[in-house]
């Protein structure tokens, strides 16, 4: 891809991601915050496509935008206090937050801008879906099985925790 075009895409997605993330954090209406979270997740999916990680980008759209955001919307609506007025959320402990954020970002930028990475010139995997599928079934078989058991346990646990006590 042309270098200028990819830079333009990068910065457009950066503006989209940062502004939607800020809106998620500062927005007073939680429903809108969840919608902006969806926008943020889509812009991250755009970065995955830019980085030639097609399968991860598709999974981002399916799992996060299609699944997690919907579950979070359920959570927001189920915990909304009777009148919708109470869907707001106040901001507190500003100074601690500002100090920790400035130090964190400062440290990360300081480290990232001077470090020299050994950038590989090899071309990325073309057919990511079949490649990752093969890796899951060969080199990563143990983590794959562990994570499937973990997901099952987490979902059953979530059902049991959220069930009405003494329910039928």
């Amino acid at each position, binding site marked *: 891809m042309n270098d200028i075009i990819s830079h333009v895409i990068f910065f457009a997605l950066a503006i989209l991601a940062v502004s939607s993330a800020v809106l998620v954090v500062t927005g007073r209406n939680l429903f809108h915050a969840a919608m902006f979270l969806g926008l943020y997740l889509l812009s991250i999916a755009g*970065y995955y496509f830019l980085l030639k990680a097609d399968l*991860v980008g598709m999974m981002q759209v399916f799992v996060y935008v299609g699944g997690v955001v919907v579950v979070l919307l359920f959570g927001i609506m189920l915990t909304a206090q009777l009148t919708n007025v109470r869907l707001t959320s106040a901001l507190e402990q500003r100074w601690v937050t500002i100090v920790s954020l400035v130090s964190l970002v400062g440290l990360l930028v300081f480290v990232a801008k001077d470090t020299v990475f050994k950038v590989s010139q090899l071309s990325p995997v073309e057919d990511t879906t079949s490649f990752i599928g093969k890796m899951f079934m060969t080199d990563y078989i143990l983590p794959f099985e562990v994570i499937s058991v973990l997901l099952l346990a987490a979902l059953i646990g979530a059902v049991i925790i959220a069930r009405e006590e003494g329910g039928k």
Partner: protein
Amino acid sequence: MIPLSYYLILSGVLFAIGMAGVLLRRNAVAVLLSVEIMLNSANLNLVAFSRYIAPEQASGQMFALFVMAIGAAEVAVGLALILMIYRNLQSVNLDQFNIFKW
């Protein structure tokens, strides 16, 4: 090609925004939304490293997929916990989740 440090700085900034949400918000669901922002910024980092350092192995993409699975499980369990606490306390304000406080 876009320098790798651009991706690192971007994901650092996004992580900091998510952390601001975790520290500032008092609504438990809003904190969960901010945790999702943090998880995704870390994921972006993994995929960027995979693309630039070892593009022929795609190991960062594998890790990103694992992180997604963990994130989905975390949301399910977190929301179940919030729902149960909401049922008991009639509130999702984290400052009121102090029933264990001595």
